[in-house]
């Protein structure tokens, strides 16, 4: 147990550089989208209106489930716990509102599964499956239970196949337990 904790602490420490590079900490049940051009406060209403119609949102947060920050150019969506993230729909709605989504940040907690070359993360609450870019998480066993913050590029979303898991890049391992590899 102590060894696992040490691994988690080590991984979080290793990702402090990421945070300094601008990767922020996403809160639980939130999705964030870095969006080019979302500095126009009056016209950002169009994006807010379009996104607030998503069924998966927790409307009790931010008034309508959507928070647009014109300083950081980031749109944060408050998700209802257990809802799948409609990545394609989010991107399309932002584009239709006149903006360019660059990066989507997601947070997921679940169990890793090995499927051939791919390492999959099945979210424990929504059942949504993510494919981990690179096929492994450094220092974490393939069947570990993890909580991660990850991202994917907005440009890759339109090409996503509906049947394929969404490929994400891990930014931060928030929690890892069970079957963690021994570190040396």
């Amino acid at each position, binding site marked *: 147990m102590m060894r696992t904790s040490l691994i988690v602490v080590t991984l979080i420490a290793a990702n402090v550089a990421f945070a300094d590079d601008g990767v922020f900490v996403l809160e639980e049940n939130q999705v964030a989208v870095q*969006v*080019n*051009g*979302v*500095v*126009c*406060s*009056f*016209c*950002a*209403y*169009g*994006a*807010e*209106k*379009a996104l607030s119609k998503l069924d998966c949102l927790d409307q009790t947060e*931010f*008034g309508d489930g959507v*928070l*647009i*920050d*014109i*300083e950081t*150019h980031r749109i944060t969506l408050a998700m209802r716990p257990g809802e799948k993230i409609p990545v394609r729909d989010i991107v399309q709605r932002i584009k*239709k*509102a*006149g*903006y*360019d989504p*660059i990066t989507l940040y997601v947070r997921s907690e679940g169990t890793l599964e090995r499927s051939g070359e791919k390492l999959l993360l099945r979210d424990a609450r929504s059942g949504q499956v993510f494919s981990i870019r690179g096929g492994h998480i450094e220092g974490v066993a393939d069947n570990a239970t993890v909580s991660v913050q990850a991202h994917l590029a907005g440009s890759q979303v339109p090409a996503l196949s509906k049947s394929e898991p969404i490929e994400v890049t891990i930014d931060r391992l928030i929690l890892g337990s069970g079957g963690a590899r021994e570190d040396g």
Partner: protein
Amino acid sequence: MDRRWNRSLIVVLLLTAGLPATGMAHQPVMDMAPRWQGGIGFQVRNEYRFSDDLLSGDSDVSNPLGRDRRVNTTWLEGVYTFKRELRVTAKIPWVEQSRVVIQNGVPRKQTGSGIGDSILGLQIKHYYNRAASTGNFGLTPSIRFPTGSTGDAYPVGDGSWDVGVSASFSAEMAHLYQFYDLFYWHNSKGDRGIDAGDEFGLDVNIGIHPYHDNLHNIGIFVMGDLSVRYQGPGTDTAGRTGGKLISLGPVLVGYWNNIMLRTEVKFPAYENVFGVQVSRGIDFNVGLGVTF
């Protein structure tokens, strides 16, 4: 002032009139929004101006017979965005106006009211989005329809079909807004001898965005407005028209979600009219807009 000069002045006054109201009818309808496909916007804008200053060229002259002009125009403006690059705008004015002109050496009040000449524009826009800014380039051909009556003593329309074009650029960052619009109107000959000269103009708005509340989408812009106008020599029912005008003034814009309130005042900084005309005067604008 001797009698001969007085008579000459009266003759000149009989032939004079101010810059037509259409000159300031150019303000674009909601520049940045609605930029989404199927977006609709409406704006009700009231423009009021009054002056009893008489100009000969760029000099003030005495106004012993009390010439003046008062124009109150309420614009109903609409915009529909077919897609991000193409939208149509419409502006319908309701005009209430009066002026004092000199006829046979006697000051006479003339009035006019009703729907003025309406404008339809087709905006072609190219938007760009960058990490910390957004903006657009626009090209807008427009037509001004003779929907206004020319029957009143001070007609609210000119009876002509006019065409115009404008080229604009605007950019916005989280704390800065800038807008430039260069336009040209070709004014055709209308009814009752109204023959306004062609018009060139430049509008510039530069300002800051000092307050914005992300959670409630409430904020304000504070800007400065520069308007430059040149209108060629022409005539209306009371005399000469046309001249040069540079006006400056503050603009305050407040918004709450999809509702926007814009107030502005334009002070004439430089004015040079053809012949003798009543100055354009200070221009007050208040507009309330909403997008869907």
